[in-house]
Protein backbone atom coordinates (compact mmCIF):
# COMPACT_ATOMS: atom_id res chain seq x y z
CA UNK A 1 0.00 0.00 0.00
CA UNK A 2 2.69 2.37 1.12
CA UNK A 3 4.90 1.35 -1.78
CA UNK A 4 2.03 2.07 -4.16
CA UNK A 5 1.63 5.58 -2.76
CA UNK A 6 5.36 6.08 -3.13
CA UNK A 7 5.17 4.94 -6.73
CA UNK A 8 2.40 7.34 -7.66
CA UNK A 9 4.35 10.16 -5.99
CA UNK A 10 7.40 9.39 -8.15
CA UNK A 11 5.15 9.02 -11.17
CA UNK A 12 3.59 12.41 -10.62
CA UNK A 13 7.05 13.98 -10.32
CA UNK A 14 8.14 12.23 -13.49
CA UNK A 15 5.00 13.41 -15.27
CA UNK A 16 5.51 17.02 -14.18
CA UNK A 17 9.15 16.77 -15.19
CA UNK A 18 8.14 15.53 -18.63
CA UNK A 19 5.68 18.38 -19.00
CA UNK A 20 8.03 21.11 -17.78
CA UNK A 21 11.36 19.68 -18.82
CA UNK A 22 12.23 22.68 -20.96
CA UNK A 23 12.08 24.97 -17.94
CA UNK A 24 14.27 22.56 -15.97
CA UNK A 25 16.80 22.41 -18.80
CA UNK A 26 17.05 26.20 -18.90
CA UNK A 27 16.96 26.84 -15.17
CA UNK A 28 19.86 24.61 -14.06
CA UNK A 29 22.66 26.31 -16.06
CA UNK A 30 20.97 29.70 -15.61
CA UNK A 31 21.09 29.50 -11.81
CA UNK A 32 24.66 28.21 -11.90
CA UNK A 33 25.79 31.21 -13.97
CA UNK A 34 23.87 33.68 -11.83
CA UNK A 35 25.46 32.30 -8.68
CA UNK A 36 29.02 31.75 -9.80
CA UNK A 37 29.44 34.30 -12.54
CA UNK A 38 27.22 37.34 -12.08
CA UNK A 39 26.96 37.43 -8.29
CA UNK A 40 30.78 37.43 -7.79
CA UNK A 41 31.05 40.50 -10.03
CA UNK A 42 28.61 42.44 -7.91
CA UNK A 43 30.70 41.65 -4.86
CA UNK A 44 33.88 42.90 -6.60
CA UNK A 45 32.10 46.07 -7.69
CA UNK A 46 30.91 46.57 -4.11
CA UNK A 47 34.36 46.05 -2.60
CA UNK A 48 35.91 48.49 -5.07
CA UNK A 49 33.76 51.17 -3.42
CA UNK A 50 34.83 50.28 0.13
CA UNK A 51 37.79 51.31 2.26
CA UNK A 52 40.59 49.06 3.39
CA UNK A 53 40.34 47.91 7.01
CA UNK A 54 42.56 45.67 9.08
CA UNK A 55 40.05 42.92 9.72
CA UNK A 56 38.57 39.90 8.07
CA UNK A 57 37.32 40.61 5.42
CA UNK A 58 39.79 43.50 4.99
CA UNK A 59 37.34 46.16 3.87
CA UNK A 60 34.55 48.31 5.30
CA UNK A 61 30.89 47.39 4.95
CA UNK A 62 28.78 49.27 2.46
CA UNK A 63 25.63 49.14 4.58
CA UNK A 64 26.17 49.20 8.33
CA UNK A 65 23.53 48.69 11.01
CA UNK A 66 25.84 48.71 14.00
CA UNK A 67 25.30 52.37 15.03
CA UNK A 68 22.34 51.69 17.26
CA UNK A 69 20.11 50.44 14.45
CA UNK A 70 20.69 53.46 12.22
CA UNK A 71 21.61 52.44 8.71
CA UNK A 72 24.70 54.10 7.33
CA UNK A 73 25.79 53.71 3.73
CA UNK A 74 29.46 54.09 2.92
CA UNK A 75 30.56 54.45 -0.66
CA UNK A 76 34.00 55.82 -1.41
CA UNK A 77 35.61 56.47 -4.75
CA UNK A 78 39.04 56.80 -3.11
CA UNK A 79 40.28 53.56 -4.69
CA UNK A 80 39.57 54.79 -8.19
CA UNK A 81 41.08 58.22 -7.43
CA UNK A 82 44.11 56.44 -5.98
CA UNK A 83 44.57 54.42 -9.18
CA UNK A 84 44.17 57.44 -11.44
CA UNK A 85 46.58 59.59 -9.43
CA UNK A 86 49.25 56.94 -9.05
CA UNK A 87 51.49 56.99 -12.10
CA UNK A 88 52.40 53.31 -11.51
CA UNK A 89 48.82 52.22 -12.25
CA UNK A 90 48.32 54.60 -15.18
CA UNK A 91 51.63 53.57 -16.77
CA UNK A 92 50.85 49.89 -16.26
CA UNK A 93 47.43 50.37 -17.79
CA UNK A 94 48.83 51.96 -20.95
CA UNK A 95 51.76 49.56 -21.07
CA UNK A 96 49.35 46.61 -21.10
CA UNK A 97 47.39 48.10 -24.00
CA UNK A 98 50.62 48.85 -25.89
CA UNK A 99 52.04 45.35 -25.43
CA UNK A 100 48.75 43.58 -26.18
CA UNK A 101 48.03 45.60 -29.32
CA UNK A 102 51.59 45.30 -30.69
CA UNK A 103 51.54 41.54 -30.06
CA UNK A 104 48.15 41.33 -31.79
CA UNK A 105 49.51 43.08 -34.91
CA UNK A 106 52.57 40.78 -35.00
CA UNK A 107 50.29 37.72 -34.62
CA UNK A 108 48.10 38.98 -37.45
CA UNK A 109 51.04 39.60 -39.80
CA UNK A 110 52.39 36.09 -39.12
CA UNK A 111 49.06 34.30 -38.75
CA UNK A 112 47.39 35.63 -41.87
CA UNK A 113 49.78 34.07 -44.41
CA UNK A 114 49.88 30.85 -42.35
CA UNK A 115 46.07 30.58 -42.38
CA UNK A 116 45.99 31.43 -46.09
CA UNK A 117 48.70 28.86 -46.76
CA UNK A 118 46.62 26.17 -45.02
CA UNK A 119 43.51 27.09 -47.03
CA UNK A 120 45.49 26.88 -50.25
CA UNK A 121 47.00 23.47 -49.37
CA UNK A 122 45.96 20.19 -50.97
CA UNK A 123 43.36 17.81 -49.51
CA UNK A 124 45.99 15.69 -47.74
CA UNK A 125 48.22 18.46 -46.35
CA UNK A 126 45.31 20.60 -45.16
CA UNK A 127 44.00 18.45 -42.27
CA UNK A 128 47.55 17.68 -41.17
CA UNK A 129 48.50 21.36 -41.06
CA UNK A 130 45.28 22.21 -39.26
CA UNK A 131 46.00 19.49 -36.71
CA UNK A 132 49.49 20.95 -36.25
CA UNK A 133 48.01 24.36 -35.44
CA UNK A 134 45.45 22.92 -33.02
CA UNK A 135 47.87 20.64 -31.14
CA UNK A 136 49.84 23.41 -29.39
CA UNK A 137 46.51 24.98 -28.37
CA UNK A 138 45.68 21.82 -26.40
CA UNK A 139 49.10 21.46 -24.78
CA UNK A 140 49.70 23.16 -21.49
CA UNK A 141 49.92 26.93 -21.78
CA UNK A 142 52.31 27.10 -18.83
CA UNK A 143 54.70 24.61 -20.40
CA UNK A 144 54.73 26.45 -23.72
CA UNK A 145 55.78 29.60 -21.87
CA UNK A 146 58.36 27.56 -19.98
CA UNK A 147 59.79 26.27 -23.29
CA UNK A 148 60.72 29.86 -24.18
CA UNK A 149 62.46 30.37 -20.84
CA UNK A 150 64.90 27.67 -21.94
CA UNK A 151 65.38 29.26 -25.36
CA UNK A 152 65.81 32.87 -24.23
CA UNK A 153 67.84 32.52 -21.01
CA UNK A 154 71.34 34.00 -20.79
CA UNK A 155 72.69 30.43 -20.76
CA UNK A 156 69.83 29.33 -23.02
CA UNK A 157 69.69 27.56 -26.36
CA UNK A 158 69.68 30.65 -28.59
CA UNK A 159 72.59 32.35 -26.81
CA UNK A 160 74.59 29.10 -26.71
CA UNK A 161 74.03 28.58 -30.42
CA UNK A 162 74.99 32.15 -31.35
CA UNK A 163 78.14 32.00 -29.19
CA UNK A 164 79.24 28.63 -30.56
CA UNK A 165 78.73 29.92 -34.13
CA UNK A 166 80.90 32.92 -33.25
CA UNK A 167 78.28 35.59 -33.93
CA UNK A 168 78.49 37.02 -30.42
CA UNK A 169 80.90 36.80 -27.51
CA UNK A 170 78.64 37.77 -24.66
CA UNK A 171 75.10 36.40 -24.24
CA UNK A 172 72.36 38.83 -25.29
CA UNK A 173 69.89 39.52 -22.53
CA UNK A 174 66.51 38.31 -23.82
CA UNK A 175 64.75 36.63 -20.92
CA UNK A 176 63.10 39.06 -18.47
CA UNK A 177 62.70 41.77 -21.12
CA UNK A 178 59.72 43.18 -23.00
CA UNK A 179 60.94 41.33 -26.10
CA UNK A 180 60.45 38.00 -24.32
CA UNK A 181 56.90 39.02 -23.36
CA UNK A 182 56.10 39.76 -27.02
CA UNK A 183 57.43 36.36 -28.09
CA UNK A 184 55.46 34.65 -25.34
CA UNK A 185 52.17 36.29 -26.29
CA UNK A 186 52.60 35.74 -30.03
CA UNK A 187 53.62 32.12 -29.49
CA UNK A 188 50.83 31.13 -27.11
CA UNK A 189 47.97 33.07 -28.73
CA UNK A 190 48.80 32.41 -32.41
CA UNK A 191 46.29 29.53 -32.77
CA UNK A 192 43.52 31.94 -31.64
CA UNK A 193 44.50 34.15 -34.58
CA UNK A 194 44.92 31.40 -37.19
CA UNK A 195 41.75 29.39 -36.50
CA UNK A 196 39.14 32.18 -36.99
CA UNK A 197 41.08 33.39 -40.05
CA UNK A 198 41.12 29.87 -41.47
CA UNK A 199 37.37 29.40 -40.82
CA UNK A 200 36.70 32.66 -42.65
CA UNK A 201 39.05 32.07 -45.62
CA UNK A 202 37.76 28.55 -46.12
CA UNK A 203 34.40 30.01 -47.22
CA UNK A 204 35.98 32.37 -49.79
CA UNK A 205 34.98 31.92 -53.39
CA UNK A 206 38.08 31.29 -55.48
CA UNK A 207 36.32 32.39 -58.66
CA UNK A 208 36.41 36.01 -57.48
CA UNK A 209 40.20 35.93 -57.54
CA UNK A 210 40.15 34.37 -61.00
CA UNK A 211 37.72 36.99 -62.24
CA UNK A 212 39.99 39.75 -60.92
CA UNK A 213 43.00 38.12 -62.60
CA UNK A 214 41.09 37.74 -65.89
CA UNK A 215 40.29 41.43 -65.78
CA UNK A 216 44.01 42.15 -65.54
CA UNK A 217 44.44 42.79 -61.81
CA UNK A 218 47.89 42.04 -60.38
CA UNK A 219 47.99 39.48 -57.52
CA UNK A 220 48.98 42.16 -54.95
CA UNK A 221 46.15 44.39 -56.11
CA UNK A 222 43.67 41.49 -56.00
CA UNK A 223 44.77 40.72 -52.45
CA UNK A 224 44.10 44.25 -51.17
CA UNK A 225 40.93 44.81 -53.21
CA UNK A 226 39.28 41.38 -52.98
CA UNK A 227 40.77 38.93 -50.48
CA UNK A 228 41.55 41.23 -47.57
CA UNK A 229 38.14 42.97 -47.45
CA UNK A 230 36.35 39.60 -47.62
CA UNK A 231 38.42 38.19 -44.75
CA UNK A 232 37.89 41.21 -42.45
CA UNK A 233 35.45 39.32 -40.15
CA UNK A 234 38.17 36.71 -39.56
CA UNK A 235 40.78 39.42 -38.99
CA UNK A 236 38.58 41.15 -36.40
CA UNK A 237 37.62 37.94 -34.57
CA UNK A 238 41.23 36.69 -34.48
CA UNK A 239 42.64 40.05 -33.37
CA UNK A 240 40.15 40.40 -30.52
CA UNK A 241 40.74 36.81 -29.41
CA UNK A 242 44.43 37.70 -29.04
CA UNK A 243 44.07 41.25 -27.74
CA UNK A 244 41.49 40.64 -24.98
CA UNK A 245 43.24 37.83 -23.06
CA UNK A 246 46.71 39.29 -23.75
CA UNK A 247 45.77 42.55 -22.01
CA UNK A 248 44.96 40.75 -18.77
CA UNK A 249 47.82 38.26 -19.06
CA UNK A 250 49.54 37.34 -15.81
CA UNK A 251 51.71 34.27 -16.48
CA UNK A 252 53.69 35.61 -19.46
CA UNK A 253 54.80 38.96 -17.94
CA UNK A 254 55.62 37.14 -14.70
CA UNK A 255 57.70 34.29 -16.16
CA UNK A 256 59.20 35.93 -19.27
CA UNK A 257 59.18 39.57 -18.16
CA UNK A 258 60.41 39.00 -14.62
CA UNK A 259 59.93 42.15 -12.60
CA UNK A 260 60.82 44.35 -15.57
CA UNK A 261 57.56 44.38 -17.53
CA UNK A 262 54.51 45.74 -15.75
CA UNK A 263 51.13 44.59 -16.98
CA UNK A 264 47.76 45.16 -15.38
CA UNK A 265 46.97 41.48 -14.72
CA UNK A 266 50.21 41.05 -12.83
CA UNK A 267 49.66 44.22 -10.77
CA UNK A 268 46.18 43.01 -9.83
CA UNK A 269 47.46 39.60 -8.80
CA UNK A 270 50.25 41.07 -6.69
CA UNK A 271 48.05 43.76 -5.14
CA UNK A 272 45.75 41.02 -4.02
CA UNK A 273 48.11 38.28 -2.88
CA UNK A 274 51.02 40.28 -1.46
CA UNK A 275 49.51 43.54 -0.26
CA UNK A 276 46.06 42.06 0.45
CA UNK A 277 44.59 45.42 -0.52
CA UNK A 278 41.23 44.08 -1.67
CA UNK A 279 39.51 47.40 -2.38
CA UNK A 280 42.34 48.60 -4.64
CA UNK A 281 42.62 45.18 -6.33
CA UNK A 282 38.87 45.24 -6.97
CA UNK A 283 39.08 48.77 -8.35
CA UNK A 284 41.92 47.65 -10.68
CA UNK A 285 39.71 44.75 -11.84
CA UNK A 286 36.80 47.11 -12.57
CA UNK A 287 39.13 49.50 -14.42
CA UNK A 288 40.48 46.61 -16.48
CA UNK A 289 36.97 45.45 -17.33
CA UNK A 290 36.17 48.99 -18.40
CA UNK A 291 39.11 48.86 -20.80
CA UNK A 292 37.95 45.55 -22.28
CA UNK A 293 34.20 46.20 -22.46
CA UNK A 294 34.36 47.75 -25.93
CA UNK A 295 36.49 45.00 -27.55
CA UNK A 296 34.27 42.35 -25.90
CA UNK A 297 31.09 43.98 -27.25
CA UNK A 298 32.59 44.24 -30.75
CA UNK A 299 33.56 40.58 -30.56
CA UNK A 300 30.06 39.49 -29.43
CA UNK A 301 28.51 41.60 -32.20
CA UNK A 302 30.59 39.90 -34.89
CA UNK A 303 30.00 36.45 -33.38
CA UNK A 304 26.26 37.09 -33.44
CA UNK A 305 26.43 38.23 -37.05
CA UNK A 306 28.50 35.20 -38.04
CA UNK A 307 25.94 32.90 -36.36
CA UNK A 308 23.09 34.59 -38.27
CA UNK A 309 24.92 34.21 -41.58
CA UNK A 310 24.90 30.45 -41.12
Amino acid sequence: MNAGKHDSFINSIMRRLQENWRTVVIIIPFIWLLMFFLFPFFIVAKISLAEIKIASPPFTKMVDWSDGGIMTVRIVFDNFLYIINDSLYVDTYFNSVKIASTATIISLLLGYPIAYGIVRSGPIAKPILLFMVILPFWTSFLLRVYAWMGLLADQGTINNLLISLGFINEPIRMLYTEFAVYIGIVYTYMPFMILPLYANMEKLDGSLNEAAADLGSKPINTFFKVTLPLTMPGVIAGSLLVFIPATGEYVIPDLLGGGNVQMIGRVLFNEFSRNTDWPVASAVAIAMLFLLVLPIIIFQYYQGKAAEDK
Partner: protein
Amino acid sequence: MYGKRSRFLTIMLTIGMAFFYIPMILLVVYSFNYSKLVPVWGGWSTRWYKVLFESEEVWAAVNISLKIALVNATFATILGMLAALSMVRFGKFRGRTLFGGMLVAPLVMPEVITGLSLLVMFITLKQLFGWPENRGFVTITIAHITFSMAYVAVTIQARLTGMGQSLEEAASDLGAKPFKVLTAITIPRLTPALISGWLLAFTLSLDDLVIASFVSGPGANTLPVLIFSRIRLGLRPDINALATIIILVVAVCIAVAALIMFRQQKRDLLDQKLAEQER
Protein backbone atom coordinates in the same frame (compact mmCIF):
# COMPACT_ATOMS: atom_id res chain seq x y z
CA MET B 1 38.99 26.41 -51.71
CA TYR B 2 42.05 24.65 -53.01
CA GLY B 3 44.45 26.30 -55.32
CA LYS B 4 48.10 26.67 -55.96
CA ARG B 5 50.13 27.76 -52.98
CA SER B 6 52.60 30.48 -53.85
CA ARG B 7 56.21 30.16 -52.72
CA PHE B 8 55.71 32.96 -50.21
CA LEU B 9 52.88 31.05 -48.50
CA THR B 10 54.93 27.84 -48.40
CA ILE B 11 57.82 29.69 -46.76
CA MET B 12 55.49 31.31 -44.20
CA LEU B 13 53.92 27.92 -43.41
CA THR B 14 57.35 26.39 -42.86
CA ILE B 15 58.45 29.25 -40.62
CA GLY B 16 55.18 29.11 -38.71
CA MET B 17 55.36 25.39 -38.05
CA ALA B 18 59.04 25.65 -37.06
CA PHE B 19 58.10 28.48 -34.69
CA PHE B 20 55.37 26.29 -33.16
CA TYR B 21 57.32 23.10 -32.82
CA ILE B 22 61.04 23.86 -32.27
CA PRO B 23 60.49 25.12 -28.69
CA MET B 24 58.45 22.04 -27.82
CA ILE B 25 60.90 19.63 -29.44
CA LEU B 26 63.76 21.24 -27.49
CA LEU B 27 61.72 20.96 -24.29
CA VAL B 28 61.41 17.21 -24.90
CA VAL B 29 65.05 16.73 -25.93
CA TYR B 30 66.40 18.51 -22.84
CA SER B 31 64.27 16.31 -20.58
CA PHE B 32 66.71 13.51 -21.46
CA ASN B 33 69.71 15.64 -20.56
CA TYR B 34 71.93 14.32 -17.76
CA SER B 35 73.09 17.80 -16.77
CA LYS B 36 71.38 19.68 -13.96
CA LEU B 37 71.63 22.89 -16.00
CA VAL B 38 68.87 22.56 -18.57
CA PRO B 39 70.46 24.09 -21.69
CA VAL B 40 73.93 22.59 -21.11
CA TRP B 41 74.11 19.18 -22.73
CA GLY B 42 75.57 16.47 -20.48
CA GLY B 43 74.64 13.30 -22.35
CA TRP B 44 71.46 11.23 -22.61
CA SER B 45 69.83 10.12 -19.39
CA THR B 46 66.46 9.38 -17.85
CA ARG B 47 67.50 10.48 -14.37
CA TRP B 48 65.02 13.39 -14.26
CA TYR B 49 62.13 11.02 -14.92
CA LYS B 50 63.26 9.03 -11.91
CA VAL B 51 63.45 12.21 -9.82
CA LEU B 52 59.97 13.11 -11.02
CA PHE B 53 58.40 9.74 -10.26
CA GLU B 54 59.93 9.69 -6.78
CA SER B 55 58.52 13.08 -5.85
CA GLU B 56 55.51 12.71 -3.56
CA GLU B 57 54.64 16.37 -4.07
CA VAL B 58 54.25 15.78 -7.80
CA TRP B 59 52.08 12.69 -7.32
CA ALA B 60 49.82 14.53 -4.86
CA ALA B 61 49.43 17.39 -7.35
CA VAL B 62 48.70 14.99 -10.24
CA ASN B 63 46.13 13.24 -8.08
CA ILE B 64 44.21 16.38 -7.09
CA SER B 65 44.44 17.85 -10.62
CA LEU B 66 43.04 14.69 -12.24
CA LYS B 67 40.20 14.49 -9.72
CA ILE B 68 39.26 18.12 -10.30
CA ALA B 69 39.53 17.69 -14.08
CA LEU B 70 37.29 14.59 -14.10
CA VAL B 71 34.53 16.10 -11.95
CA ASN B 72 34.80 19.41 -13.80
CA ALA B 73 34.61 17.84 -17.27
CA THR B 74 31.54 15.79 -16.36
CA PHE B 75 29.56 18.62 -14.77
CA ALA B 76 30.66 21.18 -17.37
CA THR B 77 29.53 18.86 -20.18
CA ILE B 78 26.09 18.37 -18.61
CA LEU B 79 25.60 22.07 -17.84
CA GLY B 80 27.06 23.10 -21.21
CA MET B 81 24.72 20.72 -23.05
CA LEU B 82 21.67 22.03 -21.19
CA ALA B 83 22.75 25.60 -21.91
CA ALA B 84 23.38 24.90 -25.61
CA LEU B 85 19.97 23.22 -25.99
CA SER B 86 18.30 26.21 -24.32
CA MET B 87 20.04 28.67 -26.62
CA VAL B 88 19.64 26.81 -29.93
CA ARG B 89 16.45 24.75 -29.73
CA PHE B 90 14.05 26.49 -27.32
CA GLY B 91 13.30 29.72 -29.17
CA LYS B 92 12.64 32.80 -27.06
CA PHE B 93 12.33 32.69 -23.28
CA ARG B 94 12.51 35.26 -20.53
CA GLY B 95 16.09 36.25 -19.70
CA ARG B 96 17.53 34.72 -22.87
CA THR B 97 19.75 37.74 -23.59
CA LEU B 98 21.16 37.77 -20.06
CA PHE B 99 21.63 34.00 -20.21
CA GLY B 100 23.45 34.18 -23.58
CA GLY B 101 25.64 37.00 -22.32
CA MET B 102 26.63 35.16 -19.15
CA LEU B 103 27.30 32.04 -21.19
CA VAL B 104 29.86 33.60 -23.54
CA ALA B 105 31.36 36.16 -21.14
CA PRO B 106 33.71 33.65 -19.43
CA LEU B 107 35.30 32.93 -22.84
CA VAL B 108 36.69 36.44 -23.13
CA MET B 109 36.96 37.41 -19.47
CA PRO B 110 40.55 37.87 -18.26
CA GLU B 111 41.40 35.05 -15.88
CA VAL B 112 42.60 37.38 -13.13
CA ILE B 113 39.15 38.98 -12.93
CA THR B 114 37.30 35.64 -12.87
CA GLY B 115 39.68 34.34 -10.21
CA LEU B 116 39.46 37.45 -8.05
CA SER B 117 35.67 37.64 -8.18
CA LEU B 118 35.20 33.95 -7.37
CA LEU B 119 37.57 34.21 -4.42
CA VAL B 120 35.80 37.19 -2.88
CA MET B 121 32.51 35.38 -3.40
CA PHE B 122 33.73 32.25 -1.60
CA ILE B 123 34.98 34.37 1.27
CA THR B 124 31.69 36.27 1.47
CA LEU B 125 29.77 32.97 1.47
CA LYS B 126 31.95 31.67 4.24
CA GLN B 127 31.28 34.78 6.32
CA LEU B 128 27.54 34.46 5.79
CA PHE B 129 26.92 30.71 5.89
CA GLY B 130 30.16 29.15 7.11
CA TRP B 131 30.59 27.43 3.74
CA PRO B 132 32.99 26.59 2.07
CA GLU B 133 35.02 25.98 5.21
CA ASN B 134 38.32 25.38 3.41
CA ARG B 135 39.31 26.42 -0.06
CA GLY B 136 40.64 23.58 -2.19
CA PHE B 137 39.06 20.80 -4.17
CA VAL B 138 35.46 22.09 -4.02
CA THR B 139 36.19 25.74 -4.72
CA ILE B 140 38.59 24.99 -7.59
CA THR B 141 36.09 22.58 -9.14
CA ILE B 142 33.23 25.11 -8.96
CA ALA B 143 35.45 27.79 -10.52
CA HIS B 144 36.54 25.44 -13.31
CA ILE B 145 32.99 24.30 -14.11
CA THR B 146 31.90 27.93 -14.43
CA PHE B 147 34.39 28.80 -17.17
CA SER B 148 34.60 25.37 -18.87
CA MET B 149 30.84 25.10 -19.36
CA ALA B 150 31.03 28.16 -21.60
CA TYR B 151 33.56 26.41 -23.87
CA VAL B 152 31.48 23.21 -23.89
CA ALA B 153 28.32 25.19 -24.71
CA VAL B 154 30.01 26.83 -27.71
CA THR B 155 31.17 23.44 -29.04
CA ILE B 156 27.72 21.90 -28.67
CA GLN B 157 25.92 24.96 -30.06
CA ALA B 158 28.04 24.73 -33.20
CA ARG B 159 27.14 21.07 -33.58
CA LEU B 160 23.42 21.70 -32.93
CA THR B 161 23.29 24.42 -35.57
CA GLY B 162 25.39 22.37 -37.98
CA MET B 163 23.50 19.07 -37.83
CA GLY B 164 20.11 20.50 -38.82
CA GLN B 165 16.73 19.26 -37.62
CA SER B 166 15.61 16.90 -40.39
CA LEU B 167 15.93 13.75 -38.26
CA GLU B 168 14.15 15.42 -35.32
CA GLU B 169 11.34 16.54 -37.62
CA ALA B 170 11.02 13.04 -39.04
CA ALA B 171 10.74 11.63 -35.50
CA SER B 172 8.00 14.06 -34.47
CA ASP B 173 6.16 13.40 -37.75
CA LEU B 174 6.15 9.76 -36.72
CA GLY B 175 4.56 10.75 -33.40
CA ALA B 176 7.47 11.04 -30.95
CA LYS B 177 6.92 13.53 -28.10
CA PRO B 178 9.45 16.40 -27.83
CA PHE B 179 11.10 14.90 -24.73
CA LYS B 180 11.44 11.54 -26.49
CA VAL B 181 12.93 13.28 -29.55
CA LEU B 182 15.48 14.95 -27.28
CA THR B 183 16.58 11.76 -25.51
CA ALA B 184 16.31 9.35 -28.45
CA ILE B 185 17.53 11.51 -31.34
CA THR B 186 19.16 14.81 -30.38
CA ILE B 187 21.39 13.72 -27.49
CA PRO B 188 22.74 10.57 -29.22
CA ARG B 189 23.53 12.63 -32.30
CA LEU B 190 25.39 15.09 -30.07
CA THR B 191 27.79 12.37 -28.86
CA PRO B 192 30.88 13.55 -30.80
CA ALA B 193 30.34 17.12 -29.61
CA LEU B 194 29.80 15.88 -26.06
CA ILE B 195 33.06 13.91 -26.22
CA SER B 196 35.06 16.80 -27.60
CA GLY B 197 33.40 19.16 -25.11
CA TRP B 198 34.29 16.82 -22.26
CA LEU B 199 37.90 16.58 -23.44
CA LEU B 200 38.10 20.35 -23.84
CA ALA B 201 36.79 20.90 -20.31
CA PHE B 202 39.20 18.27 -19.00
CA THR B 203 42.25 19.94 -20.59
CA LEU B 204 41.13 23.45 -19.64
CA SER B 205 40.96 22.35 -16.04
CA LEU B 206 44.35 20.62 -16.12
CA ASP B 207 45.81 23.75 -17.73
CA ASP B 208 44.45 26.43 -15.45
CA LEU B 209 46.92 28.22 -13.23
CA VAL B 210 45.57 31.70 -12.54
CA ILE B 211 42.04 30.87 -11.37
CA ALA B 212 43.25 27.91 -9.30
CA SER B 213 45.87 30.12 -7.61
CA PHE B 214 43.15 32.53 -6.55
CA VAL B 215 40.58 30.07 -5.25
CA SER B 216 42.80 27.37 -3.73
CA GLY B 217 43.83 27.43 -0.12
CA PRO B 218 47.10 26.33 1.46
CA GLY B 219 47.92 22.67 0.93
CA ALA B 220 45.78 22.17 -2.17
CA ASN B 221 48.34 22.54 -4.95
CA THR B 222 47.18 21.56 -8.41
CA LEU B 223 49.79 20.51 -10.96
CA PRO B 224 50.03 23.92 -12.73
CA VAL B 225 50.32 25.69 -9.35
CA LEU B 226 53.18 23.35 -8.43
CA ILE B 227 54.92 23.75 -11.81
CA PHE B 228 54.57 27.53 -11.64
CA SER B 229 56.03 27.78 -8.13
CA ARG B 230 59.05 25.79 -9.35
CA ILE B 231 59.78 27.44 -12.72
CA ARG B 232 59.41 30.94 -11.28
CA LEU B 233 62.88 30.40 -9.85
CA GLY B 234 64.36 29.27 -13.16
CA LEU B 235 64.76 26.24 -15.42
CA ARG B 236 64.42 22.78 -13.91
CA PRO B 237 65.18 19.51 -15.71
CA ASP B 238 62.48 17.57 -13.82
CA ILE B 239 59.88 20.03 -15.17
CA ASN B 240 61.14 19.22 -18.69
CA ALA B 241 60.49 15.54 -17.96
CA LEU B 242 56.99 16.36 -16.68
CA ALA B 243 56.35 18.50 -19.79
CA THR B 244 57.36 15.61 -22.06
CA ILE B 245 54.89 13.26 -20.41
CA ILE B 246 52.09 15.84 -20.60
CA ILE B 247 52.75 16.59 -24.29
CA LEU B 248 52.74 12.87 -25.10
CA VAL B 249 49.45 12.23 -23.28
CA VAL B 250 47.79 15.23 -24.94
CA ALA B 251 48.96 14.22 -28.44
CA VAL B 252 47.58 10.68 -28.04
CA CYS B 253 44.24 11.94 -26.64
CA ILE B 254 43.77 14.42 -29.50
CA ALA B 255 44.59 11.84 -32.15
CA VAL B 256 41.95 9.49 -30.68
CA ALA B 257 39.38 12.29 -30.40
CA ALA B 258 40.03 13.39 -33.98
CA LEU B 259 39.51 9.82 -35.19
CA ILE B 260 36.19 9.48 -33.31
CA MET B 261 34.95 12.81 -34.68
CA PHE B 262 35.97 11.93 -38.21
CA ARG B 263 34.12 8.58 -38.15
CA GLN B 264 31.01 10.11 -36.62
CA GLN B 265 30.97 12.85 -39.24
CA LYS B 266 31.00 10.28 -42.03
CA ARG B 267 28.18 8.28 -40.43
CA ASP B 268 26.23 11.48 -39.88
CA LEU B 269 26.45 12.53 -43.50
CA LEU B 270 25.00 9.15 -44.43
CA ASP B 271 22.12 9.51 -41.92
CA GLN B 272 21.35 12.96 -43.21
CA LYS B 273 21.24 11.78 -46.83
CA LEU B 274 18.98 8.84 -45.94
CA ALA B 275 16.61 11.11 -43.99
CA GLU B 276 16.39 13.52 -46.90
CA GLN B 277 15.71 10.70 -49.40
CA GLU B 278 12.81 9.43 -47.28
CA ARG B 279 10.97 12.72 -47.63
